[in-house]
């Protein structure tokens, strides 16, 4: 959906326009929110945050009369910022130190090094997961990153839960082997 398309729809029926935008970008926004809140937020927290994001997007349009350019980039930015705010809010009520605050005390070069290493590890893991091929790469992410159970995954892939378990078990073993070849051990505590 482009800025112009949204405007056209909005003029006819604001609610329909908002619902269409919501449906088109829900997965994207949820993925961003999940990515930030996975370790600290409940499903309710994430849904609340998604609501904050879209509400902010709609208000942005109301104030400006347009999205001024790349709609997806704007939504991504709002989602990312909103999720970070939510993360901070949740952390204030928990015992965990917010990672950005902690890393803020590090010297710039240490921070950069850590960031680079993290980025390399992310890239490596994603590349290896991708190399498992479909649907195993999806199943692995859904099981171990999105914490979906076999039944939910099975539904999404039109497989039986038993097949999902089996594929997952096999794919995880393969991933461990691939990681070892790259010099990594799979972290048992937080796979």
């Amino acid at each position, binding site marked *: 959906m482009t800025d112009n398309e949204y405007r056209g729809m909005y003029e006819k029926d604001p*609610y329909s326009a*908002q*619902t269409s935008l*919501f449906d088109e970008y*829900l*997965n*994207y926004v*949820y*993925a*961003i929110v*999940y*990515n*930030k809140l*996975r*370790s600290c937020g409940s499903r309710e927290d994430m*849904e*609340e945050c*998604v609501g*904050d994001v*879209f*509400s902010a997007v*709609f*208000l942005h349009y*109301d104030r400006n009369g347009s999205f001024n350019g790349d709609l997806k980039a704007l939504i991504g930015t709002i989602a990312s910022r909103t999720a970070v705010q939510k993360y901070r809010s949740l952390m204030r009520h928990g015992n965990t130190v917010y990672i950005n605050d902690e890393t803020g005390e590090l010297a710039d070069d240490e921070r950069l090094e850590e960031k680079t290493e993290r980025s390399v*590890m*992310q890239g490596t*893991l*994603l590349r290896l997961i*991708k190399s498992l091929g479909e649907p195993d790469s*999806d199943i692995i*992410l*859904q099981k*171990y*990153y*999105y914490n*979906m*159970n076999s*039944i*939910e995954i099975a*539904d999404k892939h*039109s497989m*039986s839960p*038993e*097949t999902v*378990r*089996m594929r997952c*078990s*096999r794919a*995880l*073993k393969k991933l461990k082997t691939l*990681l*070892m070849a*790259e*010099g*990594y*051990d*799979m*972290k*048992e505590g937080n*796979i």
Partner: protein
Amino acid sequence: MSGSKEIGFDILENSDMNSVEEIGTEKMNIDKKARDRMLKITMDKYSEASGRQVDSQAAPEANEFVEQVSGTDKFQHSRLARIIGFAACSAAAVALIAGGMFVYKHNASPENTVSDPAGVIIITTVTEGTTAEPDVEEEETTESEGLSLGIDADFISPNFYTVRTDITQEELNAACKRYLDQLSKDRSEIWDICYAFNDVNHDNRPELFIKYSNPGVGGEAMLVYDGKEYKSARFMSSVSNFKTVENDIAGDVINICPEKSLVYVSSLDRFTGIYNSQIIWLDKNNAAATAFELNDSGYYMGGNLICRPADEKDKKPQNEFDAVYNSYNWQELEYTPYEDKVETKIQSGTKNGTGANVSDNKNEPIIKTEAQINAETKTKTETNTNAEKKNKTGTPANVETKTKTQLNDVLINDSKFVNENAHTNRTDITQAELDAARKRVKENWYHKDDLEDNDMKYAYADVNDDGIPELFIKEYTLMHGYIQAMLVYDGEDYYGAEYYIDFKEYKHDDIDGSYFGDQGGNIEVYGNIMICPEKHLIHLNEGGDDLGTLLKLEKGNIMKTLYKYSYDACYEGGVEVSQNPETAARFQAALDSCSWQELEYKSFE
């Protein structure tokens, strides 16, 4: 373990935007319920922030809980939720839940295509001082409008029904007899078949209840009349907040509350020790709405998960369900034995359960006037007030009173599905060596850290009689309850045993449906494993509708898949067979022909 750095999936958190898209956008499981919830949250926040009210009439999908009842009332869920919160124990809540979902089901049910005035449900049970009145808005609406609201019907099951008004008791008796005759013929392993009629939903077409015993367990079931025959009644059961499955209204015990058109069905999960119980509201067209449910995943109200057990000992879900259960006047059904006297007894038309609207004159149509129904309902309500409450364990009587039919010849002994597991020919293996291998299994258990309290236990059993005991592991998981695994010894270590199955639709070049055997992995069952060493058999049972998988472990750790009966595939001897009661009966007979042993698990020291 040569790697020096540890890596986990948490490293993917806070990825850059491109990675986020790659990881997630299309991989998550956002179902319609969740989508609607988030849209509602969005619109609430937006309207609050902008100071502009979003018109819920113009935005029906924004409010998933604006539910309409055909031709009658409309409820706002925000209020409904409060009412239910207050009156979870009241029949009003049930009526609201069930009634609110009704329209969709009758629109969505292709077999119920009758444009039946009786399909319009009128909620009249908003009582007990709830504050529903102000929110109830008289409004004529069409069925198509009801459907357009996208009401979630996940927890309503349509059932066969009839609009015929010329049904006689004689006709029902004959249908009952046909059903029981067929049941008796198909299920040779069951005995003590009894029946009862009761018009639970006051539609003047009595439901048929049957009760029977079979080896080890018994059961009760409810059937509905479709105008020709009695057919199994179904209901939707919640597996989780995101998943429902359809089951027969059948279990260890069934109680009824005709006063409120409710059926209580409960079964003890013998593997987890947890009751699967439901309170189901039956509408006049036999649609079954699962109003309250308790199972191992938690306590549900109207299909929504209210609370899940914090751990194995957490009784909160059970207590919540019990509180609801105890708020109704439940009746046990008064059964009449079937067997050889059935014809006479059924045809007499006098033994029709507790207060059924069944005519004494077997040729007289049993449909009654509204006034008659009201009068009878009143009488029944008074009677039911003193009804005895049912013990939920509900173990059928006379289970041991009859010798079961031995069906040793039904067991298939060979299979096209064969998997050769790791094994050893060594003859010098000591128990100390096996114990050491067992301890290594625990140390390397592949998902030990997924679990907060896995309570791992073990058992040895030499299923294939090769002198080397197989190792069985049992552990508790928060997500799946108890799971069990079987491992075989290869002379150095125990490895997860594999068996072969080939799902026709899920065949893949690299796996062929063979269950993969990571150490401590498969055979892994989210339920129970039982063994029959006498015949070298293993029964994997994950509960529910599935009868499970029956395996034979031969010497050399050769695993043969003899039977599999699951919701998505059935096999006998490695040959796919159709899923039907006959297949199920053969599987059950094969199970019954063996002496099954529970494994005796011990804690790891």
